[in-house]
């Protein structure tokens, strides 16, 4: 195996080079495209004009804020509904875990397009006329992933044993939840929240088929009148997503280091 490893020593740099090209070719090209504008006599030049155009659109900020608001509500609904249920499964209801696991995986089997038609067919008008319909549905779309993240996170923790220990030492249930269960679940819960938030910010299929206008659907409608604007918006949103991931991974590796140091 050592010989094979030596033979493969060029593999990592080569792979990283190919992968960088794979990512940066469209990204770099789009960045170049997004600064394009045309002068009075029709000559191509580069300027900040497309980005100025974006900021001048009143819809830009309103759609961005709407998307953030909807994503925040999806996180809150996940916190109220999914987190306590998974904790309860591990604490007392191990018997039902296989069943709940199966049911929560089903949204992965159903294409979102098909679910959207169902929502349009089945839901009453009052529900279809409020934008809170979207976060309520995003919770369902995220559920296969959030359940998996929380379940995997809790599998590594003997939640039942430590909460029984806390109870045995005289802690009330409320104290147990706040001082024992909540702190050990923090990491898994943060992962589930992050995923719900990211999925909600980028969701397009259900949103557009239910005729709502959030940030991603607005970008698509912009493209019909201003393709450079749509490309600039795409560069903006992917850069934003990369930065969030970058800082999230930085802070998580830092907190991991801190945990390792205290152990």
């Amino acid at each position, binding site marked *: *195996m050592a010989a*094979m490893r030596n033979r*493969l020593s060029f593999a*990592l740099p080569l*792979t990283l080079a190919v992968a960088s090209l*794979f*990512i940066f*070719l*469209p*990204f*770099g*090209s*789009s960045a*170049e*495209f*997004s600064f394009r504008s045309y002068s009075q006599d029709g000559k191509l030049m580069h300027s900040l004009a497309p980005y100025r155009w974006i900021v001048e659109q009143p819809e830009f900020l309103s759609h961005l804020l709407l998307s953030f608001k909807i994503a925040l509500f999806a996180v809150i609904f996940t916190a109220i*509904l999914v987190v*306590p*249920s998974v904790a309860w499964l591990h604490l*007392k*209801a191990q*018997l039902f*875990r*296989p069943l*709940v696991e199966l049911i*929560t995986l089903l949204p*992965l*089997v*159903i*294409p979102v*397009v*098909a679910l*959207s*038609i*169902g*929502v*349009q*067919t*089945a839901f009453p008008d009052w529900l279809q006329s409020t934008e809170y319909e979207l976060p309520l549905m995003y*919770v*369902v779309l995220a559920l296969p992933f959030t359940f998996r993240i929380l379940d995997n996170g809790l599998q590594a923790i003997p939640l039942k044993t430590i909460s029984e220990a806390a109870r045995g030492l005289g802690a009330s249930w409320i104290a147990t939840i706040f001082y024992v269960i909540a702190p050990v679940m923090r990491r898994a819960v943060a992962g589930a929240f992050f995923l719900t938030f*990211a*999925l909600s*910010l*980028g969701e*397009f*299929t259900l949103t*557009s088929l239910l005729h709502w206008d959030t940030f991603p659907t607005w*970008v*698509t409608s912009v493209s019909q009148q201003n*393709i450079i604007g749509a*490309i600039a*918006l*795409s*560069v903006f949103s*992917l850069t934003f*997503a990369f930065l969030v*991931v*970058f800082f999230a991974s930085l802070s998580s*590796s830092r907190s991991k280091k801190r945990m390792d140091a205290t152990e």
Partner: protein
Amino acid sequence: MTNSYVSSKGVSRKGGTFARRNLIIAAPLLPLLAYLGFFFFWPMFAVVVDSLKNNDHQWSFINFTTIAQKPYSTAFQNSILLGALSALFASIPGAIFAYIIEVRGSERLKGFVTSLSGVLANTGGVPLAFMFIATFGAQGSAIKILKALGVDLYSGGFTLFSFSGIVFVYLYFQIPLMVIIFSPALHSIRSEWRDAAKNLGATPKKFWTTVGIPLLFPSFAASFLLLFASGFAAYATARAMTVGNIALVPLVIGTLVDGNVQVDQANVGKSLAVGMVLISALAMIPYLIIQRRARRWQQ
């Protein structure tokens, strides 16, 4: 799981107590189940019921005989082909990439690759479409650079808005998706197994043909099926590129929902949705079963 519970509590023989205990245990799970019932099972049930009704609200198979004919059958063929081809072209490079990162990469690099793949696979849909127009569209930067170098792709009949163009764009979220779902399987090939095979005199080739590939193949097949379902059902990228010239099932459903097209039967869109669910289930159910079995030795 049931057995261990029953024996540890020892209440199973008193039937009534056991049932009541279970009910109390299940009660806190009811909100989640009721939520899924309302926001997931009910809409899907409504689609299936409506797909089996004709314009006069009578039970009928007419919608399904309609979608078995052109143009709908063509849309199914295109979508299945798109799912299969994008899965094929994404799964192999994705698996090789994941393997090299797993074997050679540092922990930090692995974490970074996972996060990056997550962004591209999950949030990429709409932005990716426009980025490809900026890169490989007729006015795209890459196309212009190639033209300056004397290569005119567009004179060769290339266009991003063709079937092969869509397959190409889909690779940009399919390959990262492959990296995300295949990496855990690679992670579980323990270095002890390699060392054991080596100590027993196996060459690297022997290790791969008798240990590595047989162990990884189920996970690879499962990942392929998931990629197929993902490519088959994807809507955002195709919609954002407005590829009206290629019939894909999700796009056809989209136009029916928007009411841009008048069809003879009001419920054709719903039968198309049921058709999508069936094909998707054919791929996803084996995926979930294989994943479940593979997880036994992956832990």
